[in-house]
């Protein structure tokens, strides 16, 4: 399983010509795998660059629902929406202007949309 994890999360580059002291370069996510496990003579281990969430990333359900809950009365107005529609609303709230949002969701109160935009952008995970 550890091997699978490594395969999944590491970038491995074979560099035989220029790296006399190390034949392999490995980039490790230290939150997933300890860097020390790769410290061998012919392996140059480095830390994989920190990742940052894109504002247009689809949210996890819990993150999205937490955000929606911060807008009083919103849940009742979006009860008909399924997961897909809710996720799209969430991403749009983070990336579109209020004018665009009101065009997309004329059935939702502008005040609630403005509030949603604010909390969604504030809680940028």
């Amino acid at each position, binding site marked *: *399983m550890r091997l*699978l*994890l490594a395969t*999944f*999360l590491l970038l491995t580059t074979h560099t035989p010509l220029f790296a006399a002291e190390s034949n392999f370069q490995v980039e490790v996510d230290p939150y*997933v795998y300890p860097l020390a496990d790769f410290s061998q003579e012919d392996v140059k281990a480095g830390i*994989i*660059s*920190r*990742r*940052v*969430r*894109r*504002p*247009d*990333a*689809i949210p996890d*359900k*819990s993150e999205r629902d937490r955000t929606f809950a911060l807008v009083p009365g919103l*849940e*009742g*107005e979006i*009860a*008909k*929406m*399924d*997961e*897909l*529609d809710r*996720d*799209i609303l969430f*991403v749009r709230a983070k*990336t579109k202007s209020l004018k665009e949002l009101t065009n997309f969701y004329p059935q939702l109160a502008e005040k609630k949309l403005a509030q949603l935009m604010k909390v969604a952008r504030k809680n940028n995970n």
Partner: protein
Amino acid sequence: MHFLVGFLLFTLAFAGPALAGGVVLMVNMNYSSEELKAAMETAAARGQRVEMVPPREMIKLAEPMFHKRDGLEEELEQKFPPKKSSLPNPAKRQEQNELFAEEQSLRLRSALYGIIRKGSAWNDDPEIANYVSSARKNELFEMYQKVFQQEQKNGDMFEQLRRKAAELKAKGDRVDSLLLSSHSDGSNLTGETSNRLSANELYQLKKEQPALFDSPRHVWLLGCYDMTRPHHQAWRNDLFPNASMIAGFGVKAPSRFDEKSSNYIRQTSAIADRLDREMAAKGKPLDPAYVGNLFKSLSTFTTEAHPGVVDYCYSVVEGQPGAWSHNCEDQWRELYATKDKMEDYISVLAPREDPPSAGGGVLRAFYNTLQLACPAQEAKSERDHWQQSERLRVTTRENVIRLIFWWNVQHNFSAYFDTDILAMNARLSKAGIDPMPQIDGSLSRVEFVNTYYAIRKRLKDNLSLRKDFESLYDPLLLLKGEDSVAAGEKISVPETLKRNAIPFNWIEGTTVMRKR
């Protein structure tokens, strides 16, 4: 709060006198006379009539065939019992016995379907073939042929339902209740003969005949899995938003020959009628606890083997804990199983199905399954590799959402890359290769992928052109999304495309960008 929304939708759709009249429409894909009888009793009590699709006369033709088939199956089970394990360890012995039973069940089922399809010509399993006389085999074969031939004449379920909806509309009949009786994987409906009704067809039908879906007060989904959470959500939100009641079962639904199934229709319809009347009289939503207790008092609702699940005005009542919301492990098991089924859509090598043009159909249901599955850390089966499982969820949802909106994505792709596509076409023509068909928002994805590989194959000796071709079309081929970028990396459309991903806002139905 959901309850209030349900109430508002209900009152808007069925204000006052609309509670009376209308017809009960039964989609009876396995020709159940018992369930039809229950529907007719329900309708009679309300002064309504029942309409059935396929035609009611089919029951006389099909049900004797099913009884004959099931009788033979029982006989074969007696005559050919499964092997018995001789392992000394009791746990291992039980495990092996279960395996033997499953193998034997599959063997008998395969024999039965062989006989039904080929009659006395079937000889795939000589031991069973020799046991069943040729006359019996041919009798079953002929009965099945008659049903099959009549089904061919009736046309497919989609066409029959479309015709029925048009006919009811022309007569001014409102569908007050709808029963869907079939086998189901939660979204696609199948019969035991040739009757099929896919989720995509249901979404298409909703687009063409919205009244069929918007008018029913009560909906029964009598197949397996229909009322497990992700599927229920699709039925409720996407197909029947106005119904006061959607009733069905969680994982396992009872057989149509089990009287529980028909009694379930009788009992739930009586309760739903009562609740509708009370709600209309009070003019406000009913207490969810009161509603829950009424359904839980029904004998057919709380059985261990087939617990019911009812959604009354968006409030869900489970006959047994977990009937609606699977346990965490089952949710992940279902997620993987559904993902496998979606391969015909998702594949980047050889997709066989185009994304549905309206609503998202089964892909949308799959997306909901993905997002509704519990955190992987909470599922025993995922715990030791939960990061991978969550990663799979993230990459799949980013991919599937772009697939659902394939038609918009390709439209925005063509708008943005207009000049590049023309230039590439000119270079391909010069190299004697037919260019990509026009990408204008209506190109089949199956055709796009097939053409992509055909062109790439022809470019095997022209590496420079091949590299440019791939760098232009790979994002559209892969339909990847980025949820994150390495710190310091740019988040812009050109950079996103360079990493072979499609910007999220290309799923929008409007042109979001000018050509680059």
